[in-house]
């Protein structure tokens, strides 16, 4: 096999892995949108916030330290202990569940039955509020997130595959972090699907997504389901936050990954979990392959920044409901 072809394959594999991360963010959007019709602009900030919280808890930071010091004239910043990764993840999840409850109790409970655009505006407010809370709680400095995930290219894969090509092929370069992210994402998706298909709460979630009135009449509490859904979105945000945070540090730009999820949603549809995954993979592979085949040689590179949006635009024109979205049928 020629080296060029093999490098093409490497690009595809790396694209798939980047796609998994996009899918992970998109999944958070789909969960909330499906169950409540809310397009949650704050999903990206939730990822940032959960990563900040995780990093903060792990390093034993005192939450709201700045505020406390300003009020009481103290000078405390750290508890002086380090929390083990697993315990910190569990604590962060608890924080995300409390956040989910708060969002439902103080925001969306009062907005039931409002126009989608108003719900959307509320999530924009929520995004900036949460960003501010994140800053206030943990400070605005860039944090590293060392949760023990492997980093750098995988030598094993490189050695294994080096023999495939000729003399100018040196094996696939695949980031170990991407590989770990892929495994985690697959487990998460299987877990979510199992949950929604085989448990009472999952069935209730699908019921609420379908018809509120009918759900109420069979004894489902809408509030409970919405808190549940926001908690699940919090879990997905945490996983995405860990992966992206481990990759490029926990900083404000982490919240911008939400923008990467938009084209994925346009491709996959806003209401389909498989759609979010396939959409993510297509965008991941598409942008890497486009860059490799066309962007870098002919267009001067850096096409990854816009390729996804152009692809999404094409989809909007020809298949507005996305690949797996519920079909739009208009009867006159």
């Amino acid at each position, binding site marked *: 096999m020629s080296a060029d072809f093999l490098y093409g394959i490497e690009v595809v594999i790396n694209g798939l892995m980047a796609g998994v991360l996009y899918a992970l963010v998109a999944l958070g959007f789909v969960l909330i949108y499906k169950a409540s019709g809310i397009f949650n602009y704050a999903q990206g900030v939730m990822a940032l916030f959960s990563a900040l919280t995780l990093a903060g808890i792990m390093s034993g930071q005192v939450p709201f330290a700045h505020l406390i010091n300003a009020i009481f004239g103290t000078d405390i910043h750290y508890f002086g202990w380090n929390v083990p990764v697993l315990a910190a993840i569990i604590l962060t999840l608890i924080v995300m569940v409390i956040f989910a409850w708060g969002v439902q109790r103080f925001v969306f409970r009062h907005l039931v039955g409002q126009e989608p655009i108003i719900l959307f505006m509320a999530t924009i407010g929520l995004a900036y509020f949460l960003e501010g809370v994140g800053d206030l709680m943990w400070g605005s400095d860039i944090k590293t997130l060392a949760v023990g995930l492997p980093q750098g290219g995988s030598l094993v894969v490189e050695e294994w595959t080096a023999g495939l090509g000729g003399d100018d092929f040196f094996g696939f370069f695949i980031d170990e972090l991407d590989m770990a992210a892929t495994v985690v994402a697959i487990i998460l998706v299987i877990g979510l699907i*199992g*949950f929604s298909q*085989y*448990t*009472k*709460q999952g*069935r*209730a979630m*699908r*019921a609420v*997504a*379908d*018809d509120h*009135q*009918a*759900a*109420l*009449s*069979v*004894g*489902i*509490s*809408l509030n409970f389901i919405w808190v549940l859904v926001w908690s699940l979105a919090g879990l997905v945000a945490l996983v995405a936050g860990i992966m992206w945070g481990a990759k490029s540090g926990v900083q404000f730009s982490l919240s911008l990954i939400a923008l990467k999820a938009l084209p994925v949603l346009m491709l996959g549809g806003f209401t389909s979990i498989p759609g979010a995954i396939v959409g993510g993979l297509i965008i991941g592979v598409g942008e890497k392959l486009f860059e490799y085949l066309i962007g870098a040689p002919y267009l001067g590179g850096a096409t990854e920044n816009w390729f996804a949006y152009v692809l999404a635009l094409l989809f909007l024109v020809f298949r507005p409901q996305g690949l797996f979205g*519920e079909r739009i049928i208009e009867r006159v």
Partner: protein
Amino acid sequence: MNSPVEHYVTTDGRQIGGVMMDLRDITLRFGGVEAIKAISFDIREGEIRAIIGPNGAGKSSMLNVISGFYKPQQGEVYFRGQKRPPLKPYQVARQGVARTFQNIALFEGMSVLDNIMTGRMGHIKSNMLAQAIWAGKAQREENENRAAVERIIDFLEIQAIRKTPVGRLPYGLKKRVELARALAAEPDLLLLDEPMAGMNVEEKEDMSRFILDVNDEFGTTIALIEHDMGVVMDLSDRVVVMDYGRKIGDGTPDEVRNNQEVIDAYLGVAHD
């Protein structure tokens, strides 16, 4: 006008028990409009109770009050002898009150089977993890719930459409699936909001038969709203008649039929 307080047996041999639900002086307002004006009536265990009246009489509002979808401004609801605090609809459902809707509220994206399974929601007690990995008690429970749902499917003769997505079904069958879902909860009180609206004669006959069978075989207490006077008179043990939010008649079908106010409301009367 009301039937005796003691338990009795109907002419066709069904047991009618004491008062299950007692509505006292219910008043419901939407802004300045009084949809229900100080209405009181009761529903007894094992009976089929009809609420009739012309369009806009407040019948559906009454059913919505019973099922917790509307909160009356005044009046009290007594359920099984106890005063009921203001409850959310899902809490009322969990107390054993199931309902159907005038405009059909089904989960259109799910199959008929899944729709009916949601009716069993209150009968699943095992924890989330056990359900997900399908272990021990959860599996037994799931099997029991499946069996119960299959009995209802047989009972309502919808075996042929078990796996069909509800969105694809014709109107008459949707009505039947909605009834199946309500029955799956094994309710003590079943509320039917115009179960026969928009049906042809044959479908109406089927639905009447199902309603009678449900009441007869499961002993379910039923309160229903219906427009078709003939159907109501055949089905029900006692009838409440509403007009412009007021109660204008209450009693056996025969008593109601001969009530002058009811005749006026239905046939129209010259107002001076």
